[in-house]
């Protein structure tokens, strides 16, 4: 079956010739009309639309957005904050960048609708430090919108006011974790908070109720406010509604960003048709479907079981190519949809070295607050580094898995799972490579195979 066409909802104007990131262009294309309509409605209605839409977070966790909003403590009397997570740092992910650089007003409109719906009066966009141009673009866009009375005091004469401030990060992946982000925004070291009791919806920024939402998620809110939650829920697949931007990188013919209805295409369609298949003379070996924290999938393995389709339980027997690209299916077969970052590796890549690269990333980014992640991530990195650059022992694969097993589920935040899952899945699925690595690397490095760590 051929792959469906892209459904460019968020990315409609990215790559459109002549489309620029200024307010005038955005308004020529219907910009801020949705906000105009939204502020005439009751805020609770907008929250309801988002609930009906079934929108799930696009930052990595896939948590239902409407549920997140409804957990807000609206009775405390404290100000409610929205924090926009523009810290895009999950390896393999590159979608928020384009929204910020090329269509920033879509984000701002989504932010304003979200703020209005949740009675937020001050919001911060936490943008990663490595997007300095993006920060400037956002600041200008906010200023322009403010001048047009779309942001700031008394929006469009409604009496509702909301300020947006841009806050730059400085190179820490852990600031993408919602409570780490909040701590960083408060000017402290970004140590994630223990939950309970510090659920952001109750005790968030400055101990006030806070929602933290991903850039792409907030853009979807704008479209939900436009077409209504029910219409939105018909896009995509049940429980996996709407569109999402898949970011494909690594060893395919046409890496890049592609926006599809969630669950309407399979991994095989994505990689072989949309992205043109493997590089000449190579075959696909492994793919990480949802950012480097997701468990790896090995080409050739099978996934079997029963799953619910409509009202029935249906059997499935899939290869990697057959997996529908939606949150639930990917979770069901033992990985996750995550941030949508699809990283493809072919038969020229050593899985030991690839894991070494990933382990180096996590050990570098670990904040160091809690014991298992702090010590375990560095230990795993040292093991793979030793395997690649020093002496590799046949038992090192089993040791890696054992260390990773002591981290996942035992940490303050999901970084524990993020650093453990790659190791667990690489060793589980490519165990023979790990056992035989010392023998494999005796010869000279094959031509064209880059070093990874």
């Amino acid at each position, binding site marked *: 079956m051929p792959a469906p066409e892209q459904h460019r909802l968020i990315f409609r104007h990215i790559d459109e010739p002549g489309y620029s990131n200024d307010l005038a262009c955005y308004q020529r294309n219907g910009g801020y009309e949705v906000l105009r309509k939204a502020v005439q409605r009751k805020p609770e209605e907008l929250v309801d639309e988002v609930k009906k839409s079934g929108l799930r977070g696009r930052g990595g966790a896939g948590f239902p957005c409407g549920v997140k909003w409804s957990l807000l403590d609206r009775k405390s009397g404290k100000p409610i904050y929205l924090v926009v997570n523009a810290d895009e740092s999950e390896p393999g992910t590159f979608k928020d960048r384009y929204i910020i650089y090329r269509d920033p007003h879509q984000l701002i409109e989504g932010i304003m609708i979200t703020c209005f719906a949740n009675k937020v009066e001050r919001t911060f966009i936490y943008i990663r430090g*490595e997007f300095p141009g993006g920060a400037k673009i956002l600041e200008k866009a906010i200023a322009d919108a403010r001048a047009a009375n779309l942001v700031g005091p008394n929006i469009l004469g409604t009496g509702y006011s909301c300020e947006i401030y841009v806050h730059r990060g400085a190179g820490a992946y852990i600031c993408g974790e919602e409570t780490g982000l909040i701590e960083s925004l408060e*000017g402290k070291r970004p140590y994630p908070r223990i939950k309970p009791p510090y659920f952001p919806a109750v005790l968030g920024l400055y101990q006030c109720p806070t929602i933290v939402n991903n850039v792409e998620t907030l853009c979807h809110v704008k479209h939900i406010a436009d077409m209504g939650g029910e219409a939105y829920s018909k896009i995509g697949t049940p429980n996996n509604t709407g569109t999402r931007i898949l970011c494909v990188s690594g060893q395919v013919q046409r890496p890049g960003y592609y926006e599809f209805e969630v669950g309407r295409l399979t991994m095989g369609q994505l990689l072989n048709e949309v992205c043109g298949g493997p590089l000449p003379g190579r075959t696909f070996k492994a793919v990480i479907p949802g950012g480097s924290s997701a468990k790896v999938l090995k080409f050739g393995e099978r996934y079997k079981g029963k799953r619910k389709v409509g009202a029935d339980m249906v059997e499935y027997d899939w290869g990697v190519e057959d997996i529908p690209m939606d949150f639930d299916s990917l979770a069901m077969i033992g990985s996750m949809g995550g941030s949508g*970052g699809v990283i493809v590796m072919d038969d020229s890549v050593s899985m030991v070295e690839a894991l070494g690269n*990933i382990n180096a990333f996590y050990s570098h980014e670990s904040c160091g607050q809690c014991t298992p992640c702090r010590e375990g991530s560095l230990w795993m990195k040292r093991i793979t580094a030793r395997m690649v650059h020093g002496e590799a022992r046949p038992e090192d694969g089993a040791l890696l898995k054992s260390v990773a097993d002591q981290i996942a589920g035992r940490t303050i935040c999901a970084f524990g799972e993020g650093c453990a899952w790659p190791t667990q899945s690489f060793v589980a699925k490519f165990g023979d490579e790990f056992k035989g690595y010392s023998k494999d690397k005796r010869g000279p490095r094959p031509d064209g195979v880059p070093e990874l760590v």
Partner: protein
Amino acid sequence: MIALKPETLQRIDEVIPHYPVKRSAALPLLHFVQEDQGYISGDAIEWIAAKLEIQPINVYELVTFYPMFRQKPMGRRHIRVCRTLSCAIMGGYRTCAEFQRQFNTGLGEVSPDGEVTVEFVECLASCGTAPVVMIDDDLHEKVDAERAIALSREIKAAQAAGTR
């Protein structure tokens, strides 16, 4: 004592009221000071702490946590090569080695002529156009070893012409 430019002081005074708690302005102030002075000195740390009515250790903790802040001057041009998985698979390590060779410099050091610092960074969120490199604030895509040579030539030309 630190001598910040008037524009910097103005930006600082404008940004602090954005936050209900002064301490939140620590990161913005660190960025402004680093853009102004090239790095964060001990004096700057104490100045920022006094400005925000917090303790110097609270600022020092941040400067050493975030890799983007540096406590020593760097080369005039800052070359950051991504080394995370997608970029590495597409040859990021070769790219970095080429830059180092072009400027005769080690990782994280200032090149002998003071012009360039080359370092590795983690994922820059542009994996589809790997390998990627940031030179100062600009992103450069699909930078293989050949393109690295071309970019290095541009840097050297600008250096000779006294421009950027």
